[in-house]
């Protein structure tokens, strides 16, 4: 009888990022994060503008649940910097930062969030169901169930003889769902060009990661599939950028999937209206906001100055307000068409 030792842990890889990184790349990461935040601040404003008196979730120009990603911009910015719109991204119920970073058309996305005919899904989908064939972007409101379709997109890209890849995103809470395991095993076994991203924002609604997850890092779970796993601490956009560069290169080279977990921050509530009474780290949260922090670092490195910051912020503001104006001007869908698009 022999007892076989468990597999070796994944070798920690060189993180990348830091002062060696091309200033243009650093500026790009910053710009993406600012656009995402600016956009979500506007969505936040519009969402709450007409929910009253009190707070009625079904009321207003933007009704329904609203999961904002503020604080998690480093994940999307760092990963999507390596993608073209030919690559696929499957995001979660908290999809905006990935949509923005992946280049989904802001106008049509916003119109969708407003439930308008000019939206990505003609108002049928809503903020958790954004489908953009142009950028191969999609998301799902069901935890971890965005992983499996990414396998199929990667499979198709590979069969089509391209080096396009798929990025699949979940939260750390979702990493305890069966679909996570099945997807990693299948992608690993078939060497599919997928990059699996876990956004660890410490919370699954009100349940802390420590209460839900039996290991300190989901990156350790990569061992269970014989693939590389990396965890990025500190919500560090350049760390994400570095890890994603390695993972994307591996996928494009036909060497199979990788798993990246990023320790990030949910700056706001799980969804709008969440009082977060359960949240112990709340007071501290704003001081960890990754955008001012990165801004300061880039200023210090001489990559950013006041003028550039102003330019980037106002460009973001303009694009955002343009998108919101587009959405508001887009027609409300005709109730008579409510049963259309069930079958192709």
């Amino acid at each position, binding site marked *: 009888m022999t007892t076989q030792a468990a597999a070796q842990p994944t070798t920690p890889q060189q993180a990348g990022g830091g002062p060696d990184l091309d200033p243009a790349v650093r500026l790009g990461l910053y710009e993406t994060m600012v656009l995402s935040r600016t956009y979500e601040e506007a969505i936040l404003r519009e969402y709450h503008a007409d929910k009253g008196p009190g707070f009625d979730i*079904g009321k207003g120009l933007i*009704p*329904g649940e609203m999961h904002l990603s503020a604080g998690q911009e480093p994940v999307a910015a760092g990963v999507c910097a390596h993608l073209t719109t030919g690559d696929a991204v499957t995001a979660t119920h908290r999809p905006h930062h990935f949509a923005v970073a992946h280049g989904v058309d802001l106008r049509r996305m916003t119109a969708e969030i407003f*439930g308008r005919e000019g939206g990505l899904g003609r108002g*049928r989908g*809503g903020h958790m169901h954004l489908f953009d064939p142009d950028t191969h972007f999609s998301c799902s409101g*069901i935890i*971890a169930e965005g992983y499996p379709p990414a396998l199929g997109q990667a499979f198709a890209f590979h069969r089509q003889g391209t080096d396009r890849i798929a990025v699949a995103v979940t939260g750390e809470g979702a990493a305890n769902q069966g679909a996570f395991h099945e997807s990693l095993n299948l992608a690993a076994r078939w060497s599919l060009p997928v990059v699996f991203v876990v956004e660890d924002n410490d919370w699954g609604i009100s349940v802390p990661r420590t209460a839900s997850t039996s290991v300190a890092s989901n990156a350790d779970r990569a061992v269970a599939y014989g693939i590389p796993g990396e965890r990025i601490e500190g919500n560090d956009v350049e760390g994400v950028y570095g890890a994603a560069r390695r993972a994307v290169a591996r996928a494009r080279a036909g060497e199979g999937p990788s798993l990246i977990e990023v320790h990030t921050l949910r700056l706001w509530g799980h969804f709008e209206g969440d009082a977060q009474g359960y949240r112990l780290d709340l007071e501290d949260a704003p001081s960890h906001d990754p955008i001012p922090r990165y801004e300061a670092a880039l200023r210090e490195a001489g990559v950013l100055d006041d003028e550039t910051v102003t330019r980037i912020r106002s460009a973001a503001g303009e694009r955002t307000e343009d998108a919101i104006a587009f959405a508001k001007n887009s027609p409300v869908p005709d109730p008579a068409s409510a049963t259309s698009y*069930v079958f192709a």
Partner: protein
Amino acid sequence: MTITETPTTPTPHSRRLTTSKAIVEAIAFEMDRDPSVFYLGEDVGSYGGIFGSTGGLLDRFGKDRVIDTPISETAFIGLGIGAAVEGMRPIVELMFADFMGVCLDQIYNHMAKIHFESGGNVKVPMVLTMGAGGGYSDGAQHSQCLWGTFAHLPGMKVVVPSSPADAKGLMTAAIRDDSPVVYMFHKGVMGLPWMAKNPRSNDDVPEGDYETPIGKANVVRSGNDVTVVTISLSVHHALDVAERLAGDGIDVEVLDLRSLVPLDREAILASVAKTGRLVVVDEDYLSFGMSGEVVATIAEHDPTLLKRPAERVAVPDVPIPYAHALEYAVLPRHDRIEAAVRRAVAG
């Protein structure tokens, strides 16, 4: 007559509660009297349940009996099953009915079948609660009713209360039942502070030990001209329409099924035998579901009971759209119910 005046709701010892508070009261009462009862699910602890189904229970019973789980529905529903098999009485919450797709095997192939497969030797006294329904633009994956799906699959009772008193009484009965019970609460009847609600979602609820038998429909409004058979939030829409139509001299009987399994076919037949006209209102999908089953119940008993074609008002086999105008076009709301009732009584 409205739902608050039905004979099953004794008034002396009651006070007004929202449906969610009424549910919590029933659970707390059972947890007090039976140490084998515990509650399990996502965000049921300090959050108190996304739809308020467990508010205050953690403080009162502690984290050994009110337990937040990982997002692993298959594992924790299965855990409930195993605990029930060993004599505990778990209440397990699936946050939204829509999420059944990630854990249906535990529900329908295990929870619902073990008793039968064991020839009655093993009992699974478990309650599986879940939120259901739409009306607030939560999109196609968070707005479904799906009770027709659960009801089609044998071995589990399917309870869907419409009022605070029923919510309490049926929860008490569900916990005490030796069979698995799927207990679905429509978000729109819970009386949540953050969602549009019917005034009846805050209503009289008897204090103390209060049980409503599972399987008995409730005539929440008696009438002679037409029977509206419905369940959950749609009961309220039907009552609203009935009140409006009373002014036009149309006397609507509203039958709240309260449970799909067991289905109170006698009550359906008795009402339609009286009125001769049937409208079924269902927020679940139209085809292959509750509305068809209710209509078929008449037609297989005696089609001549129907003086007019049966009417069905349900979601017309389309995913629930996000945009408000589209969603309200497919939901069985007042306008469509009224039109159907008028058709049913015409001629």
